[in-house]
Each structure stands twice: as C-alpha cells, then as structure tokens.
C-alpha cells in the first residue's frame, strides 16, 4: 500500500456487499486512493468492479444491494450506505457503464442535469470547459442525445459528470464498444482532466493495456476480492497480468487454450 504523497482520499476497508440479502458479490475488498491520482480497477467480467464503484457512489441502494461489512471513508468521513444524494454532494460522481444519456434531452440539457448538486450557482463557465474538453459536442448541443453516436455519448456522459465539479470521478468502462481511435481520444482526455482539474479518478476497465498507460496505480480483482495491486508500470510488467489481461504469454507468444490447465493453476494468486 502506498502511504506517501498526498494522503489517502478514499479508503475501502474490507467491505462486503450483498444483493437482495443473499447474493454476496464483494468478499472483503480493501483499497485506497490518494488525491489527484488515477487508480485503475482491472478484472474479468463478474469480478465485482462495478459493484465496488456502486458501493462508493451509493448506487447499490436502488438495486437492493448493501454494504454489510467493513467501512468506506471519503475525505475522513464514513460514507458506506449513504444515499446517492448525499454522496454526490460530497463530490463523488459515477459515470455509469454503457453510457446512459437522457435520450429525450438535448446534449446541452444533459449537461445541465450535471449541475444538479449545485444548481443554484451559475454554470456558464463549466459548459465552456466541457465543450473545450469535448469539441465534438459543440456542434451537436441542440440535438437529442438519443440520436448521437457512441463516441459522442461517452463524451457527453463524462462531460455531464464534469459539470458537477467532481472531486472523485468514478469511470465505469469508458472504452466499452468504441472504435480504437475514439478509445485513445477518450483516454487522452481522462488524463488531461486528471492533470488540469486535479480530479481523482477511479477507472474500471477491461482494456487493461490502455488503463495501465494512464493510471498511476492499479488493482486486480477476481471473484469479489482484490488479488493483486501495485504501481501501474509494475503491474504492466507483471507476468500474470501480462498473460491474463494483456494477452501476452511469458515467452512472448499469444497464449492458446491448450494451456488452459496452467491458466487455472497460475490464476490462484492468493
């Protein structure tokens, strides 16, 4: 665990999450995030990455999920099982997986909803800032979000979150279903936001390669547990991560399913 630098901003302490009182998804997850950093959460489908984000943002509640054990502290205050209304007002904004625009609102109206946590204050400057980060949105500001392309929508939902002045931004798979060039563009912007706004970011990704390029620190999750963590560049060089998430085997060749046995064996990290 890193304890140097700016101090711990968000701390998850051994949390368990249970849906509908019976389905346990997280089994004792601990992670800590320092201020102004990008932390990446990697892992296969069903590892519990999205659930971890929702535990932080409070969006478990509407899905009948609950943090049953452990604690989450943000900026020194316990926030586990608080409502999304309270958590967003502390400055934690989650960008949901799969781009969820308000389809029947225009681009600009979508962005205005981003000011919900501080709607009494002016937002003109923030609109300009978002259009500066995402110039593609400028010419579509009057069109309905439902008719925009996937790339534009990803920019829209990220811009919408920026309107809230987040101190901690939770990004859930921003690269999902986008063309490689667009993905690169999106990641470049994420890095810029982190550098220019000082926003702390937790980035959940399947695209481990891209994520580790811009992240400072990374966690690997499996089956509701953190199985590995480390500085991003160290993770990138780790033979297991290389093999299972970057698709490069130890010898430099791509792995085939013939080696499935060794895959199973090596996957037991704990």
């Amino acid at each position, binding site marked *: 665990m890193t304890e140097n630098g700016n101090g711990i901003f968000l701390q998850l302490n051994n949390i368990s999450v249970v849906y509908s009182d019976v389905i346990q998804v997280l089994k004792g997850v601990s992670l800590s995030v320092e201020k102004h950093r990008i932390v990446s959460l990697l892992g296969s489908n069903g590892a519990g990455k999205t659930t971890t984000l929702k535990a932080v*943002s409070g*969006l478990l509640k509407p899905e009948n999920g609950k943090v049953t054990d452990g604690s989450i502290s943000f900026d020194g205050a316990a926030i586990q099982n608080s409502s999304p209304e309270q958590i*967003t007002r502390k400055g934690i*904004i989650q960008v*949901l997986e799969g781009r969820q625009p308000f389809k*029947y*609102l225009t681009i600009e109206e979508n962005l205005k909803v981003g000011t*919900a946590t501080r709607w009494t204050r002016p937002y003109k400057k923030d609109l300009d800032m978002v259009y500066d980060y995402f110039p593609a949105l400028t010419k579509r500001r009057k069109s309905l979000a439902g008719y925009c392309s*996937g790339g534009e*929508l990803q920019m829209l939902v990220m811009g919408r979150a920026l309107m809230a002045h987040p101190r901690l931004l939770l990004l859930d798979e921003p690269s999902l279903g986008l063309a490689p060039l667009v993905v690169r563009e999106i990641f470049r912007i994420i890095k810029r936001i982190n550098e220019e706004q000082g926003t702390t970011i937790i980035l959940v990704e399947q695209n481990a390669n891209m994520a580790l390029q811009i992240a400072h620190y990374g966690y690997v999750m499996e089956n509701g547990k953190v199985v590995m963590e480390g500085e991003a560049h160290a993770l990138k060089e780790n033979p297991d991560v290389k093999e299972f998430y970057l698709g490069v085997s130890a010898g430099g060749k791509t792995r085939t399913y013939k080696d499935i046995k060794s895959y199973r064996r090596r996957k037991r990290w704990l």
Partner: protein
Amino acid sequence: MDFFIQLLVNGLSIGLLYGLSAMGFVMIFKSSSVLNFAHGELLAMGAFLFLVLTTWAGLPIYLAFLVTLAGSFVLGFAVERLFLRPLIGESLIFVIMLTVGLASIFKGLLLFFFGGNLHTYPEFLPAGLGVQLGNVFVPPVYVASSFIGIVFLVLFGLFFKFSPQGIFMRSVADNQTAALSLGVHVKKVFALSWAIAAMVAGMSGIVLGVINGINVHEISAIGLKVFPVVILGGLDSIGGAIIGGIIIGLLETFTCGYISPSLRDVVPYAVLVCILLVKPYGLFGLVDIERV
C-alpha cells in the same frame, strides 16, 4: 354552421382542460411510473376548496383562485410525502392500490362534509367577458377557461424547457439511475410532480365546476377521463396528453350536439379503441429511441 362553431369552441376549451389535467397525470406516470387513480378526486378537492373559499370564507375571486392553487399544490406535496414516499422501492402494484385507496378517502371526506348534492359557485365572471364571433356567442366561462388553459400550457412549456427543476424532472423520467448518479434529488422530483399535478387538477376542477356545477361524483368521474385522454395521446407524452385532451373534448361536444347527449361518454371510447388498433402506443407515445 353556427352550431358547428359553437360546438367547436366549447369542445376546444373543455378539451384543453382535459388535456391540462391529463398532463398532471402523465407527469406522475413519467417520473415514477405510478398510475394515479385518485386523479379525479384531486380535481374534486380543488373544486370544493374553491367553493369553501368563495362562499364560506368570502374571499375575492382572484385571491380564492390563487389560494386554491397553492392549497392543491400543498395537498399534492403532502400526499407524496405521507403516503407514497414510504412505498418507494416496493412493488408498483402496491403504490397503485394505494392511490385507489386515496381516491376513496378523498371522496368519502368530500361526501361527509358536502354531501352528494349539486353545489354552485356564486356568479363571478363578468358578462362582458363573453365574445361574439359572427353569429356565435362564446359564453364568458369558455373564454376564461381557454385563457387559463393556454396560460398554464405556456407556463409549463417554459418550465420544462428552461428551468433547472423542469429539466431535472425530465431527466428522472428519462433515466432514473443516471439522474441519481448525478445527484438529482429523485424524491424531490416525485414530490414536485405530485404537487404540480394536484395544482393543475385543482385548477381544472374549478373551471369544470363553473361549467357543470360541483358534485363529488360528477367531478371525480370527469377526472377519470384522463384515462382515455392519456391512452389516446400516449401514456408518456406530455404534448400528447394535451392533444389527446382536445380530441376527447371535441368528440364529446360533437357527439352531444349532433347525435345524443346520452352517447357523450361512449363515443370517445369507441374512437379510442379504433385509434389504438392502428397506433398501439397512442398517437404520440414514444417508441423507444433504439440507439445506445
């Protein structure tokens, strides 16, 4: 021809009221997916509140009108706060049953205090408000109701298009999880939709009371016309509710005038069925934009 224009004018102004009151219903449905079976009783509550204020309290008309609007607003707010909020997260059918129960309570209260007789407001519209269109005389009450209807329509249009709260309400109707993730106060939005719906219903109640007299059963039955109206317009379209209201209003008055007053309540439903056979989502129901 004159008869036709007379019916047209009456139908339009009644239809506008149906549309407005249906708009409140659609707002609740869009934001929280709740079908409000107590909508007719909300109209009646407004109508009787105005009656109390004008006859018993003796307030001047303008003041009584404003107080009724404010009172209905508070009533809607309170209903959401006291009865619906505890049920958030429960199955929708419980919430809908609750509105059926609320309808009985409101109706029971009104019957208890006012009985089932016909009441009337004191004559307050100046006769000079009537308009002479060629050979057709439009009575003051229709002029007033059209005027109020149009004013409310414009105000709500502006509210939903430009005000932050209006945009938040639309965002909740559109995608509730995304709205939550951005910190939109979804419960406040529910409360506000109930408050606005009750306010508009109260306003429609007053005008219908002026036109037809005030009777608990009759006014709450008129309130239930929101069902054909919104189904015709499309359950999730606010604009559709207004147009649906106007169509039902016109159908009613024309049936009443040309065929028989006793068929007044039947023909709109028959036409409704025909339209739904062709357009199952209603005239303006949103067929989901399939682009994610």
